[in-house]
């Protein structure tokens, strides 16, 4: 019952903060968010599980499974549980939420209780997404995430917040619909061999080849069609080029803490779902079309990085670089090797921390300078040394500096994808070139903004940031280094969970 308790406490906290007066909402929300944080860390420390949540022969941690709605032979169940893929993401969610709440104290200065309440509501939904194992339940949480996100961008965002919020909501919602149709078609195709929406049951039936035809559509076509529908649906969330254009708009308009959650956790919903649905349930479709999927990955990496290079707004730079980094995840997943899939999952966590860190530092800079344009500022290092130091460390983390989390993740992905499928050597080598471009745009941006003579176009008084702004930055950079020095903190459990997905006679290493 720990997962239920985690979600319930978070929801109750959200309600409490919603009703609290504006003045205390921020502090209260942060204090209450420590409950799920401590809870998830406790769960991590007592975590005992093996295997993949969706496959046979697995032992899940904190699992509960009971019938919820029963109608004849058909049932919906309340099924939650954690394996080595979801546990790290749960921890990531609680850590980032607490830090994002701390980072909200400075920039959020109106309707605080609603803002913080929605943030906690968002956290609860995310925890649900990463722990639910019944499709119906999962889909409810999946859609629940959109509601606070829409409001958070639409109310507390920048000048074009309405456009950005609607665009994000409509785009991802249509994507959910496409994905939903694809998945339900699969369930219908399974016929009466599966009478619930239980994801493990469906996954195992699909992998056992029990998929029949659906109307005039044969099983082979149905698989491919469902794969495409689900891939397209999740690709919007990741986002994979060319489905990415909602992301920079959403990031630029969203307030800092919302960007942190968006880049740090929400994007991982897309790759998490890809892993759980496409790559677990329809492995042969993925493997047969590996070069095509890898092409999407490589284009995301390189094209995303090129777009970042062209930007002059710090936040847009970081936003586009997320597109680039998430491309690596796709490349790792499609490799179907231990290092590839493990590295992809590890990259979800690593990128969550590092992109959260980058958005947070950009936010701290914005709080004092009131501008994010690269051309509007220079020499910040003289005025806010600690923030700049963390920004620099984070940027090098983004570039994949060894002994930081990003390097381990990217190394694993490259090790896993090299030679894993036809043409993979070229795809891997091409994707790796991203490490040069990312260094290019981050070094350019840092040189312009952080170094040289101090100057800010907006004429604000610039000084060291407040303690509660700097503290989360320091915590994040320490976490990034910790995971980089000892990846096995998460990587051991991740490997254990992705190992059953790796075909016994796969290519690569």
């Amino acid at each position, binding site marked *: 019952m720990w997962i239920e308790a985690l979600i319930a406490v978070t929801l109750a906290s959200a309600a409490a903060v919603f009703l609290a007066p504006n003045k205390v909402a921020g502090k209260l929300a942060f204090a209450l968010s420590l409950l799920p944080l401590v809870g998830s860390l406790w769960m991590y420390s007592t975590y005992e599980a093996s295997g993949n949540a969706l496959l046979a022969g697995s032992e899940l941690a904190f699992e509960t499974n009971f019938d919820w709605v029963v109608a004849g032979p058909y049932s919906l169940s309340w099924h939650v549980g954690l394996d080595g893929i979801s546990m790290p993401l749960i921890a990531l969610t609680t850590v980032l939420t607490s830090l994002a709440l701390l980072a909200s104290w400075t920039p959020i200065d109106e309707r605080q209780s609603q803002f913080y309440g929605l943030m906690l509501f968002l956290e609860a939904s995310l925890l649900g997404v990463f722990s639910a194992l019944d499709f119906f339940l999962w889909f409810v949480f999946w859609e629940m995430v959109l509601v606070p996100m829409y409001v958070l961008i639409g109310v507390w965002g920048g000048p074009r917040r309405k456009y950005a919020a609607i665009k994000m909501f409509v785009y991802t919602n249509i994507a959910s619909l496409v994905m939903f149709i694809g998945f339900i078609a699969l369930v219908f195709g399974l016929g009466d061999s599966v009478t619930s929406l239980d994801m493990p049951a469906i996954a195992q039936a699909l992998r056992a080849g029990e998929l029949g035809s659906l109307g005039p559509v044969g099983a082979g076509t149905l698989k491919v069609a469902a794969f495409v529908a689900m891939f397209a649906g999740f690709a919007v969330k990741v986002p994979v080029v060319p489905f990415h254009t909602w992301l920079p708009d959403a990031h630029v308009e969203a307030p800092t803490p919302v960007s942190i959650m968006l880049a740090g956790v929400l994007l991982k919903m897309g790759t998490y779902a890809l892993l759980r649905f496409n790559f677990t349930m329809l492995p042969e479709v993925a493997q047969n079309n590996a070069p095509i999927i890898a092409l999407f990955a490589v284009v995301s990496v390189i094209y995303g990085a*090129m777009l970042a290079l062209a930007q002059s707004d710090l936040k847009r730079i970081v936003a586009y670089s997320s597109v680039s980094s998430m491309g690596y995840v796709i490349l790792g997943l499609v490799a179907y090797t231990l290092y590839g899939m493990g590295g992809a999952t590890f990259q979800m966590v690593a990128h969550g921390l590092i992109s959260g860190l980058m958005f947070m530092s950009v936010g701290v800079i914005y709080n004092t300078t009131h501008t994010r344009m690269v051309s509007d500022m220079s020499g910040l*290092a003289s005025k806010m040394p600690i923030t700049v130091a963390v920004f620099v460390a984070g940027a090098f983390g983004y570039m994949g500096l*060894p002994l930081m989390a990003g390097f381990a993740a990217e190394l694993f992905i490259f090790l896993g994808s*090299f030679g894993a499928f036809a043409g993979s050597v070229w795809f891997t080598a091409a994707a790796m070139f991203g490490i040069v471009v990312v*260094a290019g745009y981050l*070094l350019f941006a*840092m040189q312009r903004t952080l170094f*040289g003579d101090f100057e800010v176009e907006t004429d604000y008084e610039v000084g060291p940031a407040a303690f509660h702004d700097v503290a989360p930055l320091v915590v994040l950079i320490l976490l990034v280094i910790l995971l980089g020095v000892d990846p096995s903190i998460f990587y*051991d459990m991740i490997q254990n969970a992705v190992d059953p997905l790796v075909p016994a006679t796969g290519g690569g290493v």
Partner: protein
Amino acid sequence: MAPLPFELTPAIAALPFVSFLIALFVGAFAPRLLPKGGAVPGILATGGSLLLSLWVMLTVSGGETYHEYVTWVAGAGEATFDLHLGVLVDPLSAMMLVIVSLVAFLVHIFSLGYMNDEGETGLPRYYAGLGLFTASMLSFVFADNLLMAFMFFELVGLCSWLLIGFWFRDDAPPSAAKKAFLVTRFGDYFFLVGLVGVFATFGTSMFVGGEGEGAIQSFPHIAEQVLAGEGAAEVTTYLGLDPQAWFAVLGLLILGGVVGKSAQFPLHTWLPDAMEGPTPVSALIHAATMVAAGVYLVARIYGFYALLPQVLALIAFVGGFTALFAATMGVVKREIKQVLAYSTISQYGYMMLGLGAGGYVAATFHLMTHAFFKALLFLGAGSVIIAMHHNEDMWDMGGLKDRMPVTYYTFLSGSLALAGIVPFAGFWSKDEILYEALVHGLNTPLLLAAYVMGLLAVFFTGFYTFRMVALTFHGEPRSDTARNPHDVRWNVKGPLAVLGILAAVAGVVNMLPVQKVLGVKNIDFLHQWLDSGPEALSAHHYGELLHDFAHYSAGTIGSGVTTVLLGAGLSLALALAGAGLAWKLYAVPDPEEHTDKLGGAKTVLFNNYYQDEYQVWLAEGLTLPLARAADKFDQGVIDGVVNGVSSVSLFGGSRIRRVQTGVVSNYAFLLTASFVVLLVVIGLVGGWF
């Protein structure tokens, strides 16, 4: 149980890391508690590292070596591999540990004079950078596998970035730092591809194999077995290449990182810019150690390169070309550190030439002597720069000989070594490289071409070196600061003296020509040193590999002794000619520039053969416009389609809305019509008609 000094090897890197942490945290939170801005912890730590390194070297000279590793990331299951971090102490790494920790120690002391005495601010940041650099570099040196080497290879790149950009309030240093990191990153990209390729091919990236059955083999050893067609070793090759060709591809990819870090053509452009950093940093990072990392890496996996004749030839050719190319650019520079920067590029070219030509020991020898004399020259230049109140233009100097004798005589010692004048250290090492290139080149035309370029470079080296000495120290002072230079203290003179002596005498460790000509036995100490240790990593074994796999064989001109004398005589004569010409032109009371006599070549040389221009164009003229075009495409086309879809639906919605007129009779009509259509369709499908 390994001997105690071996057990303590990780502490060699850990000590400077602790000094980094002290400088970072005490410097940030309680700067007053930090003695000398972090210099004292740094000096103590690097001093400790030096003592430990010497102890380790002493133990290695007893014939013992050490290899221990831990699993960094364990791959689950049978089909995959683990990633390791480990310590490998053999003659090569022990020697390099001593070189790095010695230079780091001296540079820390020198920094007291260059940074503290000059009243610089931000000292904790400076010493933190130096500490982190020293720790990373030492870890790189004792790394036992390619992955660990890559990790610390990248970390020294970070430190280089931090320290080049130390004076971040000015415009030039951050820009130079960025360039240095980007250019080397470009090389490291190939290294990373090669590293991943090595794992995919061999399943390990170990430099040295373990003992006993089932132990991890080293990847050069596996490659050797595969190419020899013996043993049970199995490898996977890619791109449809046979092992020989695929190994060559891997070798070339790793070489990308080497070319970047060791500033070889065409990725040498970052090093002259890197002179924006403080001079002690240039001495430590951009002359003696980090730049050596590339060459050291090739030496470290020489067992792999020795199997690949084409790659070796390329290494030699790139090295010989770089040696000549950079030396010519050094001839016209006005600033003392610029001359030294191009000289560094050129000297690393020699090492690459030596490695490519099969002179493993020769290249390692030059790596050592160069570390001493180039660190010396940079520190000497630093001393001059202090004296000149941070004016680096040699045309403002002159006549400093009498005003700073310690600097002059040590600088002269380093210059003689650099120019390759007997009996200074550089003569012996450079001569051995050229000798190896010559004897192997007699049977391989490409190597001979590389040799000729290396030989020509000797003339230019002699010229630019003594042009620098003459302009700086001789003649009449050409500015007021040169007439009244700033004093330097013991902390500057001490390191100069130590290195000055080393630059003069370090050649004794390997006086091979003397041995060959006079027939004295056993004075080739470095050869013996590098022959000891694990068989698979010994110079002797590399010689066999070169012979068996790369088909290198030594030719002679006349007898062996004639060849030695001819080679040495030729290079000495060229060096003296170059030095003599420079002396005649510039060691006069009032020297002229003479550069106009070069005609059109002058412009080309001043512009460094336009190498910067095309690389900047690649970044700013090609990549950036491409990125902007991609951005336009993204905003216009991709996002345009997204917004277009929504506009179309909005428009469609507004049209369809007209159906809802609010008139009841219209609705009744639609209802009836739809019902009829539905009936007809159902009827058709159901087969009622």
